[in-house]
């Protein structure tokens, strides 16, 4: 059973490069832009299915000119073609508006599986994938940490508070990938060269949906409230005795 797969990917700032300005409390984003980590897992999952069962992988992103890079990277990993929905104002859209933009972009395709990362590294809402599923009228399987093809169906393992939930579903389906599903590959030199010949369609949306009833403030560091006890330069037995007293005072043991 070959799969026609769409993967939604997002470009985000590199979280490792974020610093907080101590005087203003504002987040200072580095210049480095990367593919959101859960989306890279989604691309890898799609490629593994394609390699095992045949099919085609189309990667879709929405964003400004720079966002083409994450499509290019997906193609270098092995995806077949890309779609770049051009949207300079993507940062002003809430998740529902972004989901409308993306679902409009893929609505005309006939795909078996639509993959997306469980949540993005930057705003971590974890909403776009499920909202695309709702707008397209498709079922969703979230927090996916395992995928297996079983005849005409797919078996998934989901990460939940109570352990690993197993579910079975048929296509078409939206799959939201979580950390632990796989280890995304690095593009090979050969892959990078091959990607240059693969098509990326630039799509200019007719309507860019706007955020409705929702706005947000510039992120700021919360004021520190820590007033903890720190024991230093004391023998272990003595320091531990103080800790045990503290645990007892706070009724923790």
């Amino acid at each position, binding site marked *: 059973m070959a799969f026609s797969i769409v993967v939604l990917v997002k470009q985000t700032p590199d979280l490792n490069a974020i610093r907080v300005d101590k005087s203003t409390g504002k987040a200072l984003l580095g210049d480095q832009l990367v593919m959101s980590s859960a989306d890279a897992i989604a691309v890898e999952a799609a490629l593994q299915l394609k390699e095992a069962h045949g099919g085609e992988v189309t990667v879709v992103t929405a964003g400004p000119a720079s966002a083409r890079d994450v499509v290019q990277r997906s193609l270098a990993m092995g995806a077949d073609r890309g779609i770049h929905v051009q949207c300079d104002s993507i940062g002003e859209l809430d998740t529902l508006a972004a989901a409308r933009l993306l679902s409009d972009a893929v609505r005309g395709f006939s795909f078996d599986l639509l993959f997306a990362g469980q949540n993005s590294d930057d705003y971590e809402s974890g909403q776009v994938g499920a909202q695309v599923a*709702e707008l397209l009228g498709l079922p969703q399987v979230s927090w996916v940490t395992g995928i297996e093809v079983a005849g005409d169906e797919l078996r998934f393992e989901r990460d939940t508070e109570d352990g690993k939930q197993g579910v079975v579903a048929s296509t078409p389906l939206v799959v939201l990938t979580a950390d632990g599903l796989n280890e995304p590959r690095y593009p090979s030199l050969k892959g990078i060269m091959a990607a240059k010949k693969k098509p990326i369609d630039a799509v200019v949306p007719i309507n860019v949906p706007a955020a409705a009833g929702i706005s947000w403030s510039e992120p700021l560091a919360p004021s520190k409230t820590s007033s*903890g006890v720190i024991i*230093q330069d004391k023998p272990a037995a003595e320091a531990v005795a103080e800790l045990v007293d503290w645990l007892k005072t706070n009724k923790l043991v």
Partner: protein
Amino acid sequence: MPSGILIVTETLEGALRPASLELVTAAVGLAQPVTALVPGAGVASAAQDVATAGVARVLVADADRLNSFTTDAFATAVEAAIKAADPAVVLFAGTTSGRDLAPRIAARFNAPLAANAVGLRLDGAALIATRPVLGGRVQTDVRLEGQLVMASIGPGAFERASVGGAPATIEALDVDFSSIPERVRVTGVATVDAGGGATLANAEVIVAGGRGLKEPGNFALVEALASQLGGAVAASRAVVDAGWRPHQEQIGQTGKTVAPKLYIAIGISGAVQHNVGMQGSDHIVAINRDPDAPIFKLASFGIVGDLFEVVPELTKQLGG
């Protein structure tokens, strides 16, 4: 005119999840009246519990289709509850199910939604949800306005409401599943034994180990302390990536978010991506050799010292 708050509670094996009582606190502190939806199969006693936790009304959707979580069936129940209660605000728990349902329902009702709120307040007719972003070091205030707005709350961000108060009215909510095909079927749940038998999400005590333990075998120190305290074992990303511990024990941005009564971090420096997963804990104890380790900024009690001396001593003193 929509008014009041609907909270979508969750149960596990017929009992309320602690996150559901955190939802009660978040809602009751915001506006009245609060209606609690209790979806599930065989959830009468959970409904009775939440009815005594401070809400005004309980809607029980008790159906076989709600025996284990699937998006379609639970979304159908929530949709029915919204139509029955006509709330101005819907609040979800920040659990995997809550985070799965909330965006789906928000899209269905064309409602603005904020995820993982650690603070909620009203500003005139707007709901302001404070939520951590960009790895958790900074927060944004999300302003939600309209006839119907929604949010999920961060695990551990609100205290658990106590049960045992004056009981609210309990009503059965009829949910028609006849037109809802079973597009995703649950085959089972493999419970994870996270040391001491306690799963991380429900553990009151968590003992977490990091790279400071130097080698995988030294996790025995963490396990011994966890066992002494009746708690669960967790790990930092560094040691999970190194293959010392399974991924289900990982705390942090790419792992679990926990908020136990007591979190003991051993040999964990406290990288941001770890801290976002545990900073909601009631009491944080840090044991680390490096006095400048960021974990000490979060710690309610810290010991700067050699964990190979401190941890066995702690296990010994607690045992005596």
